[in-house]
């Protein structure tokens, strides 16, 4: 038998190559499944912006809006995202400075934000309007405001005067409010209080409520000295006050009212810009018994609300509260989500088209519907009496949601808006500051 031939180098290479290939074929699927090396696929993302003041005088109120919007987005992401994409939120700080809002708006739009949620004061909203209109991107504005504005680039989620101010006047003039006769208007000196009070005055002039305005005063935003103003209220003989003061100034107002021993049973103050969040900075003894008008209170006794409040507090802490602007902010994120799902796209034009198909969302405060004509939402009107635990007893609620009207004819005759047709129909110019 001839001796076995020693393998040549060529044999070894051939054999080695064959063995290597066989091993690679056998092991590759297990080691590098799908040629991805086992790298978990990174979710595709879509960016949204948030324009909230996280520092400065408006931070305490506006930060809650950022948190509830983040909470909503985290929930959507946890459920698989939107159109298969994870939502990433950019939330730069607008530092309570109106002139910073347009800059930050451009910053988030430059980062390809497909929608932006935010703004608190009307001044900030008006400052960013041109930016959004030029970019043809939607701003979702969650705070109650004065109306008298319509933009195709804004979805307004807060109350307008026909949903908040006018029902408040009805309540004050009715049996539940004690048939009040003399109303004193007090507000911060900027566009919302002045316009809201203008609507109130026009409504009282036109209607037969038996309520008349006996005084009207404005203080600069942030002012805390209200002793002189409270004296004027008492001297006017007013038996009720409509308070449109905003921000930290309310601390000073209620301190001065308490100092002057104003009895809420005799002269109730109904505030439009005070909610649970603001009450954290006011001593309960100074504010107990007065009222706030809004669309939502944390004490709303429904399973949907209790579950929502619990979910928020579980995530952000049990000393946190939910309040009026937070509820619309939550609803707006979900209405945007529904619109995107209906449109099957993040494109603004497609989303606005989806608005026309009728969008509804069961929010913690009840069902809201986005009115495609005005791009405002329907709202329940609720009136809460402040308790000593910084919560509200809801003493009155509208039986049905109230449809939005950004141009109440009593104040803005001839004006209307219909974004499903011709947009804004202009009436005679209204001089809001004229007879102040």
């Amino acid at each position, binding site marked *: 038998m001839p001796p076995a031939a020693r393998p040549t*180098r060529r044999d*070894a*290479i051939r054999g*080695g190559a064959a063995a*290597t290939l066989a091993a690679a074929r056998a092991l590759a699927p297990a*080691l*590098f499944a799908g040629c991805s*090396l*086992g*790298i*978990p696929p*990174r979710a595709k993302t879509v960016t949204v912006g948030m324009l909230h003041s*996280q*520092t*400065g005088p408006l*931070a*305490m109120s506006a*930060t809650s809006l950022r*948190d509830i919007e983040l909470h909503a987005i*985290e929930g959507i992401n946890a459920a698989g995202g939107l159109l298969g994409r994870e939502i990433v939120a950019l*939330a*730069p*700080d607008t530092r309570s400075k109106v002139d910073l809002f347009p800059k930050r708006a451009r910053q988030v739009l430059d980062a390809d934000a497909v929608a932006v949620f935010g703004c608190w004061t009307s001044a900030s909203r008006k400052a960013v309007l041109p930016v959004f209109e030029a970019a043809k991107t939607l701003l979702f504005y969650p705070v109650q405001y004065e109306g008298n504005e319509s933009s195709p680039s804004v979805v307004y989620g807060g109350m307008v005067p026909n949903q908040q101010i006018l029902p408040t006047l009805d309540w004050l003039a009715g049996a539940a409010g004690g048939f009040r006769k003399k109303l004193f208007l007090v507000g911060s000196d900027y566009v919302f209080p002045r316009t809201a009070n203008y609507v109130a005055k026009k409504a009282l002039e036109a209607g037969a409520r038996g309520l008349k305005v006996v005084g009207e005063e404005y203080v600069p935003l942030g002012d805390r000295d209200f002793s002189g103003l409270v004296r004027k209220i008492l001297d006017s003989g007013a038996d009720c006050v409509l308070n449109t003061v905003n921000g930290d100034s309310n601390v000073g107002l209620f301190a001065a009212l308490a100092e002057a021993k104003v009895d809420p049973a005799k002269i109730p103050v109904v505030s439009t810009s005070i909610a649970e969040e603001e009450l*954290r*900075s006011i001593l309960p003894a100074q504010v107990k018994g007065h009222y706030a008008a809004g669309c939502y209170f944390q004490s709303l006794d429904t399973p949907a609300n209790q579950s929502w409040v619990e979910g928020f507090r579980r995530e*952000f*802490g*049990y*000393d*946190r509260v939910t309040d009026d602007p937070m509820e619309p902010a939550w609803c707006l994120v979900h209405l945007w989500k529904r619109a995107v799902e209906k449109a099957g796209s993040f494109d603004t034009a497609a989303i606005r088209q989806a608005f026309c198909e009728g969008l509804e969302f069961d929010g913690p405060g009840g069902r809201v519907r986005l009115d495609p004509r005005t791009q405002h939402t329907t709202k329940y009107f609720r009136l809460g009496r402040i308790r000593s635990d910084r919560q509200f007893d809801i003493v009155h609620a509208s039986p049905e949601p109230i449809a939005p009207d950004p141009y109440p004819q009593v104040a803005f005759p001839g004006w209307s808006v219909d974004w499903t047709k011709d947009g804004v129909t202009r009436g005679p110019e209204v001089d809001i500051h004229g007879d102040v």
Partner: protein
Amino acid sequence: MHPFQPESWYWLYDVPPFRLSLLFVAVFVGFYWLGSIIVRPILRQFVKYTAGSNDIIGYVLSCFCVFYGLLLGLIAVTAYQNVSEAGANVTREASALSALYEDVSRYPEPHAQNLRWLLRDYTRYVIKYAWPLQQRGIVPQEGAIRAAAFYDRLLEFKPATPPEEILHAETLRQFNTFLEARQMRLYSVNSSLPASMWYVMILGAILNIAICWLFDMRFITQLMLGGILAAYLGIMMHLIFDMNQPFLGDVSITAEPFETLYARMEDA
């Protein structure tokens, strides 16, 4: 992206550690085997093999391996220290935050409540948003906003009594300690070995392998012995690569100190 920028290799940190280890081994062994087939015959042209030539090559390889092994060892220690220091920064920040939380809890209401939730908000942000960014080599930005919000609100408090003055001064000092630790954490997000170290390591590995190609021995034996050396080099490189970025990869710092703190904040 430029291949010499560290960011261009971050995707490798997403590969599960065992597979990444195999990948490093496969690349090094593959390189050695390929060289054995293609480069070795060329190198052999330049070496006149005599009876003692393998001894000489072995001696050179031993000397080289001592220096190269020392280099690898020192670099591995440096990389580990980098991770360790970043971990210490994270712990220091969480500890400062914890002390700050205790301090503000002693403030009168509503200040205590308002300051506490701002600190909770910061901690939540670090866990939920900042950490995933750091794990992608991105320095998170929005934590600064939350820290500024806390500072703003802290300055709103006007101490009315001597004990409150002492507490407030201590809280401000603690806040500065926290800010310092926070900045250190952010600096460490992209701290890694300098590129020159990587060049030296990779060049050293190539030379190491090239010396092995010079041995005169049976081809199969060469493939096996050299393959073992190349595999070990691959494993070492993987270890150093894994420790190169403190917040990326298998050997990285987790958000555990913040998670523990957040759970305690929620309980409180």
